[in-house]
């Protein structure tokens, strides 16, 4: 019996150590409960975000306060943007919403846990320099949060403006595309040759580049002599004598070259 009791004692020590280890690994029940509340908070923030995007799409402006999301939508039939404003699951306080201007806004919540600390405990990887999952995981930027009050900053995506394709996440205000430029590069085999052009601002001293949003339709005339050298011909354009007819449209780039040689 003594032998058996001794074995039982050794087993007890091992079991108690394992139970302690188990408690260390799963974390406190309070923390786990906080984690579940935080998951609900993230869901609520997602709902408010969708409501704000819908509001922007209909009204082309940001709501001043979150209460405006309860107004009837003009695009959805007989439905408000949000049926009910989500409230904090534990405190039942409203989430803070702030319009930051130019399509940016903030939604804040009081979180009970820190994502980094929990990931660190669960994986044993130090998350403080840069959270590993933040590098690659899709949507992780909307999931990571520290403990305490934290604001997620969002921008209205362009599709909410009705101008971009769905799913195209270009931030407002959309960058106006630059109109295409027509470019004519005038060069010569000797430098510093003064050229004249029939179209305004198309003359210059080689080598020079003309970049215009309007079409370039010009005749460049090269002097018959320059720096004691004689004009011999053009390349890159239709030429008659020392005149070169250049037409550049559709954002194209052309290069014309005048050649001179010793007389």
């Amino acid at each position: 019996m003594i032998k058996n009791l001794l074995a039982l004692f050794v087993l007890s020590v091992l079991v108690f150590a394992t139970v302690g280890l188990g408690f260390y690994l799963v974390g406190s029940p309070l923390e786990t409960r906080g984690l579940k509340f935080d998951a609900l908070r993230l869901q609520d923030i997602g709902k408010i975000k969708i409501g704000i995007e819908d509001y922007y799409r209909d009204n082309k402006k940001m709501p001043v306060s979150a209460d405006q999301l309860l107004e009837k939508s003009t695009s959805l039939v007989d439905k408000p943007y949000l049926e009910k404003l989500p409230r904090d699951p534990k405190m039942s306080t409203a989430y803070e919403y702030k319009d930051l201007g130019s399509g940016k806004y903030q939604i804040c919540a009081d979180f009970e846990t820190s994502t980094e600390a929990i990931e660190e405990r669960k994986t044993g990887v130090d998350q403080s320099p840069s959270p590993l999952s933040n590098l690659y995981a899709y949507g992780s930027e909307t999931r990571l949060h520290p403990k305490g009050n934290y604001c997620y900053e969002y921008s209205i995506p362009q599709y909410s403006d009705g101008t971009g394709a769905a799913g195209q996440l270009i931030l407002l205000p959309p960058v106006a595309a630059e109109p295409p430029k027509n470019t004519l590069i005038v060069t010569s085999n000797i430098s510093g040759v003064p050229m004249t052009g029939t179209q305004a601002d198309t003359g210059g001293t080689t080598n020079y580049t003309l970049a215009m949003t309007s079409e370039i339709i010009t005749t460049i005339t090269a002097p018959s002599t320059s720096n004691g050298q004689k004009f011999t011909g053009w390349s890159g354009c239709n030429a008659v004598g020392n005149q070169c007819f250049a037409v550049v449209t559709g954002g194209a780039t052309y290069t014309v070259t005048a050649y001179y040689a010793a007389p």
Partner: protein
Amino acid sequence: MDDNPVQTARGFTVGHGDDPKRFELTKNNANLGMWVGFLHVVFFISLYFLATSSASILHEAVNRFVKDPLELETAARSYLGLFSISSFKEYWLRYSLASLIVSYPIFTFLFILIKRLEMKRPEAGNFRIRHLLIYITLTVTFIFFNYAFIKVLYAYLDGSLTMRSILHMVVTVSISFVIFVYYLFAIKEDRK
């Protein structure tokens, strides 16, 4: 339950001649077999719970403390990020911890109860159900034993043999080895 051994033999006997472990079926101890059977079934069930739950906790501890860069990097690229490593294991770990806390006192209580009964009435250790459960346990632990070694060899061939897989093997082997050896000696004792 009647704990007093009955000296006068009536009815038929089970056992071998003058063996002290001989069980003689009488009016007074007709329920002993059922009682011993019940105790052993419940005891072995709690043993299985104890072994699997403590093994689960130790396996998870190995996962947590011994990092596998392959697993971490794979998880980091997944949709859930690092949460994907632990979301399922966390549930399993909690179940294991709860089951360990519940099964351990039951196991200890039954262990002491059975040992006391066997001291008072040596014939209680000679029921077929006890032998059957011991042999089943030996077989199962042997299978776990084999499986742990196969898994490590597989990991080697698969190119995933790490410190972690070796420690997993150590956990499985040591728990099944303790149970295996304990019952191997129990059988040896029985044969004396």
